[in-house]
């Protein structure tokens, strides 16, 4: 619990991720945290962005007062890294600390907290462009300046220690998900409009190589009957149509959808299957759990931690193993029921409020409070 204080901790959050072309989980995480903190009385959050003519979509509006630099993102990111300027302290009103919430690290002379979600580009060099590599490495090296580096999982913590971050610098703060009420009517309409009367295997996320969609498609194709539904925007360098070709007409690719539709797909699905090669956390897994949808996901990466005992884990490289796990869930309604209920229970504890609470502890540590 938090203690009442006379003056709240004032923190500036970089929220520029919300304007990235494909914002992905890092933007959702930044917004979830900012909202969680904004709801508290012991923290005041100011958002910081580059210059923009547009606002981000509603679900990426953190609802906190936000100041914009006059500089565009490319210039800010480059010069923060190369020149350690412009120092943002005055722009954001000289807060107590600055939090780089996952991505670029602003130049500041104030105490700094930096979030790193994953080091996927180091583990799987093929999953990022050369430019991506350069950028991620730049952010990682800038994060070494931080008093604390926050990561969402033990998996990422291990990668950070391997990358030379000292143990005392790295703190695990799991991400959250807001509970979303089921909308069975919309779920039924979605199934009907796509002519789905058999079992549905759902995947949700940003389509990119590390999500391992070709293996998922082959696994589902090897099963008799289920349809694969792929929900989410395309990130980069993934030929989705080639990946799902083995499925013939047993695939639905929705592209980007709004939040309500995304959540209804969780209700419409029989199993959520998320076999990523590497995740820093794997927010869609937590979202599926919140809807009581049984989950099959990867062993050996953060999704395993998120899932706990609320689903099945498999080696993401093993097509047959993955197909077997999906078949087990689809063929055993008791198992599916049990996993769904366990997921719901576990998801109820993993909220943005809990993320905010743990993050405030990190802030207090940094500020020696």
């Amino acid at each position, binding site marked *: 619990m938090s203690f009442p204080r006379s003056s709240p901790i004032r923190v500036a959050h970089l929220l520029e991720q919300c304007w990235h072309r494909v914002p992905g989980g890092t933007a959702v995480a930044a917004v979830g945290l900012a909202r969680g903190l904004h709801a508290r009385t012991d923290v005041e959050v100011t958002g910081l962005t580059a210059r923009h003519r547009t606002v981000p979509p509603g679900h990426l509006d953190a609802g906190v007062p936000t100041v914009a*630099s*006059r*500089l*565009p993102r*490319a*210039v800010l990111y*480059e*010069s923060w890294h*190369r*020149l350690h*300027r*412009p120092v943002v302290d005055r722009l954001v009103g000289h807060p107590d600390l600055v939090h780089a919430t996952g991505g670029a690290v602003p130049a500041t002379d104030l105490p700094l907290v930096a979030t790193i979600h994953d080091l996927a580009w180091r583990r799987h060099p093929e999953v990022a462009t050369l430019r991506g590599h350069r950028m991620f490495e730049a952010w990682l090296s800038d994060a070494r300046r931080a008093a604390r580096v926050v990561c969402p999982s033990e998996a990422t913590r291990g990668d950070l220690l391997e990358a030379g971050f000292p143990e005392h610098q790295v703190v695990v703060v799991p991400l959250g998900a807001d509970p979303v009420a089921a909308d069975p009517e919309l779920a039924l309409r979605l199934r009907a409009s796509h002519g789905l009367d058999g079992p549905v295997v759902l995947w949700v996320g940003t389509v990119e190589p590390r999500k391992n969609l070709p293996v998922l498609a082959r696994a589902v194709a090897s099963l008799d009957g289920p349809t694969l539904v792929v929900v989410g925007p395309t990130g980069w360098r993934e030929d989705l149509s080639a990946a799902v070709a083995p499925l013939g007409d047993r695939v639905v690719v929705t592209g980007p959808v709004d939040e309500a539709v995304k959540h209804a797909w969780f209700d419409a699905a029989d199993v959520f299957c998320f076999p990523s090669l590497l995740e820093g956390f794997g927010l869609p897994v937590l979202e599926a759990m919140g809807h009581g949808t049984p989950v099959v996901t990867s062993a050996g990466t953060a999704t395993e931690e998120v899932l706990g005992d609320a689903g099945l884990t498999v080696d993401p490289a093993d097509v047959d193993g993955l197909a077997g796990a999906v078949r087990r869930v689809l063929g055993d309604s008791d198992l599916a029921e049990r996993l769904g209920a366990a997921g719901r229970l576990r998801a109820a504890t993993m909220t943005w409020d809990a993320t905010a609470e743990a993050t405030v502890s990190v802030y207090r540590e940094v500020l020696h409070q």
Partner: protein
Amino acid sequence: MTCRLAVNLLSLVPGDVGGAEEYAVRTLTAYGRHGPSDLRPVVYLSQVALDAHPDLGAAFDVEVHPGDGRSRPRRILAESTWLARRTTGMAVHHFGGRIPARTSRPVAVTVHDLQPLDEPLNFSLIKRRYLEWALPRSVRRADLVVAVSDQVGRRIVDRLGTDPSRVVVVPIGVGAVAASPAEPSDPPTILYPAVTHPHKNHLMLVEAFTRLADHHPTARLVLTGGPGTAEAEVANAVAASRHGDRITRTGRIPATDLAARLATAIVVAFPSTYEGFGIPVLEAMAAGVPVLVADGTPATDLVSDGGVDRDAVLAPHDPQVWADRLGRVLDDRAQRTDLALWGLTAAADHTWEASAAALEQTWRRLLAGPDDGQPAGPDTGPRG
């Protein structure tokens, strides 16, 4: 109630006063856009100035003097007669660096630089004598002295012994800064936009370029800006250079042409040894073009702020230093990127909103009258 504040722009002669004209028009236009509606001065200017800058007429109440302002004695006379009559009882801000013999009070004066005192050789004898007398006298008589940059403000205090509390700074701003460092075109072009006055130091740059060009067979130097008192010497130096065929002297070019040349330059060399503010330096920075400047001008503050030495401030009179540094900038993309990013971030600090706010503060102080109870100095003009 009508506003009791007058702005004297009679000294604004379109195309004649360079940086001072740009400064006046831009800060006032910014005020028109960002300043409060309850504090709007009446602007006094000539018909030709209004024709050249119709935005001023849209933003402010104006009173137009029929003369064209080109005859300096007639203009000075008009300030003490036509203007003084119309502004009786008003606070007046004289933008032209000088307070007329007769003026209403309280009074503010904008000072661009102390060049007549610091570099008298750039002026004809008569103009120099006049300015040597008028400038310190104006500063003495002003309730508020408005400097165009911190550095000019400091020089006013140092050189003329002005009480720092009477000196305010109204800096210039820039519009949008570029989205990324500029992409130079081929062949690599060094740009210097400046009128060919002696203190602009063209001769040094031509010599530096000549030495650089020995090792850079494709490099070009482009000199824009109108002819000044050193035009003939500059032309001779270009003709005498063994790489004169790679030096282009364009003369004065329209703003859009200059912007286009700026956007494709590999570096702006700005060896001027005397500037009030150095608007072109700020513009180059906002365009994402690396800038090298001479030590000792306000541009130094722009380029080196933050106290980190990026080797962008050079000894003004050493062509070898400039040749070497320009050579490194031409050869090293990473250095160019750093200089360009540096410039973009510094330019972003100079907002028009800040300019307008500084002007508003100045005017509110002026209208409130002297705050220390002491007269600013002897005045021969009528009291309002």
